[in-house]
């Protein structure tokens, strides 16, 4: 009787394992196909033809992926050692947290008894490809990441006839799972502010005299876009303002005339006044903050 029970239990748990592996694929597909960002903690593991075998008996973080719901899935591989099989561990943390070096339970996923082989991220078709062996059977998972802007594509060479649409998996296409609301309606009409308030340019990215960033870039939230001003040229960026661009008008920043004119005049400060221009009849003058304005 005891033997019969043992046989039944062995059969049961092995079938559990099969189901576990299949569900792993299903679940990460549903979680990741609308992911926002992928980060490789250890780039040596990415697109390497070598399988991951060392250091044995350690847990290595491979990559993290930020899901649509602003969760960060940290992907680890427990490298097999003597008498111990490998395992994939996925730990869920908040998107602005870093993945812990030594993940503790509970895990989002724990796929045991596998040998993880390779991970390829193909920027050309916006996909992540994982391969591993389970019970001597090779398994592959390919997930198309529709919303991720990879460097290769986002830095695409723009030329005449190019459009302004963003190059994700498909040019201009973004997909979100409906149950996560990503839009927040503004509570007041940006135009309905008093004229002074409306036409007051608000800084959304700023640097001090030593080119240290003193205001983090939040220009993506500007209702009417943003514009850069002529003045301090810092290697890490330019001072930007939210608002309808009224550059060149009285009391407003001068309109940038272009990099060639700025560089040519060696304009590290704005006194030269040549890097920007104003409406006819106004002069471009450097203000106290080192910004060229029209008066």
């Amino acid at each position, binding site marked *: 009787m005891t033997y019969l029970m043992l046989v*039944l239990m062995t059969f049961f748990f092995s079938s559990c394992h099969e189901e576990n592996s299949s569900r792993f694929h299903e679940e990460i597909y*549903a979680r990741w196909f609308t992911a926002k960002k992928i980060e490789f903690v250890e780039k040596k593991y990415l697109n390497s033809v070598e399988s991951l075998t060392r250091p044995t008996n350690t847990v290595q973080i491979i990559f993290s992926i930020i899901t649509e719901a602003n969760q960060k899935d940290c992907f680890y591989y427990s490298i097999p050692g003597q008498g111990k099989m490998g395992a994939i561990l996925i730990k869920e943390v908040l998107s602005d947290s870093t993945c812990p070096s030594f993940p503790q339970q509970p895990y989002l996923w724990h796929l045991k008894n596998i040998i993880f082989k390779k991970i390829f991220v193909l920027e050309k078709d916006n996909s992540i490809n994982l391969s591993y062996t389970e019970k001597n059977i090779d398994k592959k998972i390919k997930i198309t990441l529709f919303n991720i802007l990879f460097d290769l594509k986002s830095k695409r060479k*723009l030329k005449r006839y190019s459009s302004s649409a963003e190059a994700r998996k498909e040019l201009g296409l973004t997909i979100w799972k409906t149950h996560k609301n990503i839009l927040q309606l503004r509570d007041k*009409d940006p135009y309905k502010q008093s004229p002074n308030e409306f036409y007051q340019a608000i800084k959304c990215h700023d640097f001090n005299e030593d080119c240290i960033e003193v205001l983090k870039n939040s220009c993506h*939230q500007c209702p009417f876009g943003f514009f850069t001003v002529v003045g301090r040229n810092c290697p890490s960026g330019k001072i930007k303002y939210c608002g309808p661009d009224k550059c060149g008008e009285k009391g407003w920043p001068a309109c940038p005339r272009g990099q060639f004119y700025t560089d040519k005049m060696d304009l590290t400060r704005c006194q030269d006044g040549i890097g920007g221009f104003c409406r006819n009849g106004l002069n471009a003058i450097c203000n106290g903050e080192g910004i060229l304005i029209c008066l």
Partner: protein
Amino acid sequence: MAHKKLSFSLLAIFIIAVTIFTVYREEINGKVNINKHYYERLAKVSQDINEVWKRGDYKQLMQQGISCEEEFGDLFDIIKSDLYFRCNPSFLNCYLRNFSKLHQSTKVFFQELPRHNNPREKSFYQLISKTNFISKELPAFTIKIQATASEENTKSVEIYLEDSCNDTYLPKRIYAIAPYDENKVHLEWKWDNFDEHIFIDKNYVTFRDIKDWVDFDHFFSDFKIKNSIPAEAALLAAPATGLSIEQAKRYCHFRGKKLLQSRVLDAASFHPVALRKTKRSVIFRGPFPWSYERKNSQIYKYWHDQIPFDQKLCAKIFTKECFIKDRFPFPIEVSASWIGIFNVLGGYAEILDNKLSYAKNIHPSGMNFSLKKRLHQIGIRGEWNEKELDDTSFNIPGIKEGFSEMKLAFRCMRVIK
């Protein structure tokens, strides 16, 4: 004996537990499998829709007996180009309304969504603008579609589509403004766009675009514009006229853009001759967009009475002579520039944001004037005081005769740093 009984009891409990667990597991597993299947189907359909959106292939719909009359009237029979239908939300609306007819085996359903300012009217899309919504994830302007992969509405996605058809890139180089004058080369005013990306609308903003703005901008309150929109569906394809400069700017903001600047229109219009030499000190500029030649041009010859007027010239510049009293006289793909913007000359006069000479705020070349007028050249500017649309409110070089209504359209541009 007692030991045997206990073993049997344990075995029975184990078998029952396994049975319950297996049934539960299959149910869970089945759901997960179906979820992935649903999402894969939705992702595939999203890609297909993006293709339909970009192609605007109205002939394909016509072959299937779909005329989109609700959206376009009889425009399918009038317009001979698919340019107007590309990245056109009305075209997509018609396609999605007929989706189940066109794709009977694809089990995907699209939800009708209320128009924000007119909830009784519904469409298969919504416009999402940063002037109305705060979102870190989305571009400044997109259209939203909602799709479900089952009739029970359990698994659904929101599909966001950007307009990837109707703007074109202005390559990075040094540009000059105003017509070329060999005696004033040393006084030329130049600028460059090496540190920014500029995209320009290929064509004018249409009444269709304005109608969408009116229906979807939560903060829209200018009912004078609303009343000027034609009621007839086919006429919505015409360029939007009758807006003030501030209204045009506000529309462009809604689309995540700016009103086209005068110097940028010049840059997009003058053929730069040597495309690869981006930092030339002398920038030669011809009067017409299709060539940098002057005297060999048909228009130049017509000006100097070397050739008579011919309707073929309307394919170059659509002027007063070309206007035939037709219901839809607007030509779409005429007078293209070196970067692919249309109606650089002729068509409709255009409102501009002139950052240098504020008062010179229009590009007057358009069908208000005959082809003999020399204002049909790139870089010519006129002044509009915004009071009226008749000749009392304009100051246009070389124009003395009166006109009752200037056809004044506009287009937008996008700047990405």
